[in-house]
């Protein structure tokens, strides 16, 4: 008999009880915190005289505010320095493991937890950050929470939650050369809409995801939230286990074998029932670029900015807003759009394989005149591995800046910002108005290889023209 989807099984195993409101009290196996959304949570704990129930199940790092050029303390930005000290104190006071700058393991929270093997199948994972969906790539149930909920997890290791429905999002087939995981998820968001996933966990299934590496799977799950799904996951398999084995916090010896058996048992049953199923063909996906101000306003690189008539009534007003803000008229080909800034990094695409793909495009070429292009590794470990392979030298020779790890211009809480109406080609996840640090700055989302190609060409270009035939 079916015991359901991975979501059902993990949810049930972590259910502490049903609250009087009918919500589930769910145990959170791993809690990740950073400097932006945790200070007020600790303040509330102190105000209420509460302790941290399981300090060993919370792990902290600093990512959003860190400068990526000069990291000397105190930071030049006094507000950022205050946040930094606040986190350092909270972690020291409550006995929480903290990966600080210079520890060798600091980085974007959604990069460091997987690379250390903290993220594992079958866990429930919460973090005060919407891109916590990333960790679903391992077959964990992971989602973003607000600061009051960060307080709840610190105090009780649990959350009050309503159960989500599950939609199976199937993609089958092999991707064309020059089409990456980022293109797959941008395509899915384009097709399903930015609110299509509200109320759902997305189970990404099918041969396309099965063929992906863990880093590619993380890129897909990372952006589940951009399609409205608070949580996205992929069933664990041999690719997952091969990635995990030997990492800092992976189980060892006999426990490793037990773990694999347990993880296998959590996979969605073949006869599990889903609240909804949709499917797509990998061969139809082109390198995809956003042209607007929401992540579902995306098109294939050879397409033109869509006409207002092509939208349903509910999407037309925001399309009009996007034409005006982006200064891109309907019918304009996106290819050839001039670019000012190129950003490679973020929790979506700041991992080693992302930098490797971008470096393949950059190698032996040079950034176009007048373009600012920079590469920000997702973590100190990614930076160190990339340097061991000489990627920093490839980028620098091509005219890219090579930076320290952090969120950087994904949301520009540090000094890396767009200026005025500058337009960026960005490997990050959000093209919202003002997202990259200038209230009128503009963002085109695309894969890291496409960003590198845009940097070389000085305009949006099809990365396939740069690939060996």
């Amino acid at each position: 008999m079916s015991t359901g989807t991975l979501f059902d099984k993990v949810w049930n195993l972590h259910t502490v009880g049903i609250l009087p409101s009918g919500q589930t009290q769910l145990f959170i196996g791993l809690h990740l915190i950073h400097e932006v959304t945790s200070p007020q949570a600790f303040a509330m704990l102190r105000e209420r005289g509460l302790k941290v129930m399981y300090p060993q199940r919370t792990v902290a790092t600093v990512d959003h505010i860190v400068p990526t050029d000069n990291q000397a303390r105190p930071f030049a930005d006094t507000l950022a320095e205050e946040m930094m000290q606040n986190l350092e104190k909270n972690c020291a006071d409550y006995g929480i493991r903290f990966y600080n700058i210079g520890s060798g393991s600091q980085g974007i929270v959604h990069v460091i937890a997987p690379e250390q093997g903290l993220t594992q199948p079958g866990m429930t994972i919460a973090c005060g950050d919407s891109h916590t969906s990333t960790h679903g790539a391992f077959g964990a149930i992971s989602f973003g929470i607000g600061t009051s909920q960060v307080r709840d997890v610190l105090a009780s290791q649990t959350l009050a939650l309503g159960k989500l429905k599950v939609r199976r999002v199937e993609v089958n087939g092999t991707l064309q050369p020059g089409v990456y995981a980022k293109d797959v998820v941008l395509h899915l968001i384009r097709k399903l809409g930015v609110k299509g996933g509200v109320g759902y966990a997305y189970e990404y299934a099918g041969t396309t995801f099965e063929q992906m590496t863990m880093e590619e799977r993380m890129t897909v799950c990372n952006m589940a939230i951009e399609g409205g799904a608070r949580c996205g996951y992929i069933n664990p398999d041999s690719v997952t286990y091969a990635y995990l084995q030997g990492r800092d916090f992976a189980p060892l010896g006999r426990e490793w074998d037990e773990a694999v058996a347990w993880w296998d048992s959590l996979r969605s049953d073949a006869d599990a029932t889903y609240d909804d199923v949709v499917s797509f063909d990998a061969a139809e996906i082109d390198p995809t670029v956003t042209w607007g101000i929401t992540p579902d306003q995306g098109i294939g690189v050879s397409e033109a900015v869509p006409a207002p008539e092509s939208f349903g009534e509910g999407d037309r007003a925001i399309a009009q807003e996007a034409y005006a803000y982006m200064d891109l008229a309907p019918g304009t080909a996106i290819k050839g759009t001039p670019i000012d800034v190129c950003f490679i990094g973020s929790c979506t695409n700041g991992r080693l394989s992302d930098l490797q793909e971008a470096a393949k495009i950059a190698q032996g070429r040079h950034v176009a005149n007048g373009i600012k292009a920079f590469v920000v590794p997702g973590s100190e470990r990614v930076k160190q591995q990339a340097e061991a392979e000489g990627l920093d030298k490839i980028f620098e020779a091509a005219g890219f800046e090579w930076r320290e790890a952090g969120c950087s211009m994904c949301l520009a809480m540090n000094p890396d910002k767009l200026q005025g109406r500058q337009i960026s080609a960005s490997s990050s996840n959000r093209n919202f108005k003002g997202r990259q640090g200038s209230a009128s700055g503009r963002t085109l989302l695309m894969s890291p290889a496409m960003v590198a190609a845009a940097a070389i060409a000085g305009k949006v270009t099809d990365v396939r023209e740069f690939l060996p035939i």
Partner: protein
Amino acid sequence: MSSSVASEARNSQARNSQIKTSQGTALPLVGNDIDTDRIIPARFLRCVTFDGLGEHVFADDRQQDPSHAFNQPQYQGAKILVVNRNFGCGSSREHAPQAIARWGIDAIIGESFAEIFFGNCLAMGVPCLTAAPETVTALQAIVQANPGREVQVDVENRRVTGGDFAADLTLADGPHQMLTLGTWDACGQLVAQAEAIEQIFGELPYVNWANAA
């Protein structure tokens, strides 16, 4: 921005107060998919408390558009915010609903809400109720035509009224009960289950592996 000062003093709902009704004038904010980066731009997140966020709500949108609803004098002091589809999408920052509440808003009616935003509001005691698009649009039009009109949001009976306008609202039973019984701040209830929590901790394999975090 006069109301922000008053609401800072109010701060947020007193913990575990019962939230059965909200009333006051309303503020119609038209548009779908309004994300939390717009509600409170990231530069205002460089802080260790939520104090002072009220005055920065929609800072960039208001600066770029002097006719933005939050700028208009007739909506100052409003308690009820009326929005459209997928309000609060994007980042999980609780700074967004905190900024709205500290500006002075007590309740939000919309076509739909992004999930994390809805959960953040619930945890703060700010009810978010939904209605059909026609109902929301009609309410926005009425408020635009009569900005001074008192609007009542009856959380308990899931209804909105204002003058001769009345409509049913939707709010799932769980959040409805938490708000009306005053258990929306779940922290105390959660902590009280320490024994049951420890039992789950004992049963989960991964927290007990020798090499666990």
